[in-house]
């Protein structure tokens, strides 16, 4: 396992400077990804999943948002220590990212082909003609019909699903080892979502690509990921293999999230829901951030931050009451 460890994020913290004080957005997040593995990073809006990945990619939105602690070991080197030039080379060639809304990440006045060919010429030194041939081939690989003709289209001429395919083609241009996919199917319809997820899994099977899939949808995680890390209020609260964690979640938040999915209980009956709402950044920094919404909360939860501890091999939960959570209702 350690031998083919591709990415190892250790104790990553990200803070934003507000009025001279740093407010934590991500607080000590740790997880790892092996070659050829699909890792789901799950959480609700504001849980810090996107900021974690942006920090990993060194693409944080503003100078006020900064990594305050931790390491991002990728293929053995700490990305946080690299110079800008070296980081650009890693980002272009070994590490790629795709986003929720392709239209805002594709250049509207460049053809799809030119956008895919650009990194090929820049990073791999291909000639114009070679890059064009390669781009057509990439579009074919991601399932764009008639790629030789569609390569001269502009982004507005593509449908939502095709734009996401084009963005995947661009991300794969330099054969990265790891693809970070930030909610890649959230804006798509379910039938198109299934096509895109299938494409990502096919690419993994064919090329050994590892994927970090950021999503809020446990259904997507169940069907596509090997392992998952659940984030809440900037902290990773539970991680492990999907089959185990979703069958018997050991953190009360994971259990609550799973139970509030409609489609499991008897139609028309009250859905189990998590009362209240997630904490804002800077709120509840002492103790467990989930405690006001937790049915198992005790005194210790207010005073001490729960540390991650092993439930089983490769399965970690950060909860003071883990001994009691075995009684949580298992998934249907």
């Amino acid at each position, binding site marked *: 396992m350690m031998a083919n460890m591709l990415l190892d994020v250790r104790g990553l913290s990200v803070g934003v400077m507000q009025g001279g004080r740093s407010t934590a957005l991500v607080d000590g997040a740790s997880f790892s990804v092996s070659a050829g593995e699909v890792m789901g990073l799950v959480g*609700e*809006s504001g849980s810090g999943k996107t900021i974690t990945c942006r920090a990993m990619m060194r693409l944080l939105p503003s100078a006020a948002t900064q990594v305050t602690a931790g390491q991002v070991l990728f293929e053995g080197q700490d990305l946080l220590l690299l110079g800008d030039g070296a980081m650009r080379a890693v980002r272009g060639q070994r590490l790629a990212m795709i986003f929720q809304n392709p239209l805002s990440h594709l250049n509207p006045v460049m053809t799809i082909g030119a956008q895919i060919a650009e990194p090929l010429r820049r990073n791999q030194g291909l000639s114009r003609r070679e890059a064009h041939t390669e781009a057509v081939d990439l579009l074919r690989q991601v399932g764009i019909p008639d790629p030789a003709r569609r390569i001269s289209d502009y982004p507005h001429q593509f*449908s*939502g*699903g*095709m734009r996401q395919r084009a963005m995947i083609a661009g991300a794969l241009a330099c054969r990265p080892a790891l693809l970070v996919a930030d909610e890649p199917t959230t804006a798509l*319809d*379910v*039938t*198109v*979502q*299934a*096509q895109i*997820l*299938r494409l990502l*899994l096919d690419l993994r099977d064919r090329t050994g690509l590892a994927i970090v899939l950021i999503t*809020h*949808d*446990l*259904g*997507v*995680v*169940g*069907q*596509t990921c090997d392992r998952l890390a659940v984030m809440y209020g900037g902290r990773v609260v539970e991680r492990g293999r999907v*089959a185990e964690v*979703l069958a018997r979640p050991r953190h009360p938040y994971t259990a*609550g*999230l*799973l139970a*509030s*999915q*409609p*489609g*499991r*209980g008897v*139609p*028309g009956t*009250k*859905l*189990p*829901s*998590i*009362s209240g*709402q*997630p904490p804002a950044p800077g709120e509840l920094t002492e103790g467990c951030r989930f405690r006001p919404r937790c049915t198992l909360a005790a005194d210790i939860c207010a005073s001490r931050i729960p540390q991650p501890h092993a439930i089983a091999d490769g399965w970690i939960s950060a909860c003071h009451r883990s001994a009691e959570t075995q009684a949580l209702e298992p*998934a*249907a």
Partner: protein
Amino acid sequence: MSTHPLLAVENLVVSFPVPMGLTDIATLRRRRVRAVAGVDLIVNRGETLGLVGESGCGKSTLSRAIVGLVPTEAGRVRLDGRDREGMSAPDRRAWHRRVQMVFQEPHASLNPRMTIGQTLGEVFRVHRICPPAEIEARVGDLLEAVGLRRDFANRRPHGLSGGQCQRVGIARALAVEPDLIIADEAVSALDVSIQAQVLNLFMELQRARGVALLFVSHDLTVVRHLCQRVAVMYLGHVVEIGPADAVLHAPLHPYTAALVAAIPQPGKQSLADTALMGEPPSPLNPPSGCPFHPRCARAISICASAMPEPRRIAQTTVWCHHAEDTPALQPERII
């Protein structure tokens, strides 16, 4: 009580003009896109009808046309058998009071400069529901009914979370004590844990007040949980309508089957193989015959030439040429 259903939509057509391009101007051609292409459906008193389909299928336009937010080209919308066309202004206002809408974007559907109390109080004033002196108390009662504290009346939308804003949106719809609430993707913008809270609120209100619900959503698991009957739309047409159990567990229309198969569920270990190829065609150039035939695995020549007539099988109505010849499709039983 009359024998009419609460809401009856008959052969409703909604179309929008398409901006003219150069060739259109040269040929003096004015094109229109038919977002809703002749829809019939009913909603009974106190029931929940789910309206599902992918983006662009016309489900939002249909729900907006029912409340009169977009003009209709043809067809009727009746409430207790009465069409609002040709009504006098006071009758029309009374008609509209009985059908209320809850929108998708919780923040965008509230005026940011008004307090929650002003937003809700306005409804009581406009519809002259109670004397001005009672408005404050009524607003407080309403907030409690949707699970918010009375002091929320003094706050403005920006201080509220998405789930709280959506509760205000529901309170606004409830203020006039409607018979029908149309909820257009009302929980889609909410996180799962908050979504469950709002769905519970819908079910509670329905039980307590007997209000009927037309629940428009792309999320079939939500619809399965909430709705007694389901209508499936594709390219402006309803292709299947019937009891939720039947439509979602033994669909008769191939499109419904594909939609059900594509739902991601935590308990499912792998992606379904029956995922549909391609994407819906543009409503600007709808296909001939059955709107689904270019993507349908069962399509034969008649599907390309003739629009299927409605067929009634058990309690389901389905628009498919093959509905009688084949047994119900069995997608992997997941919801």
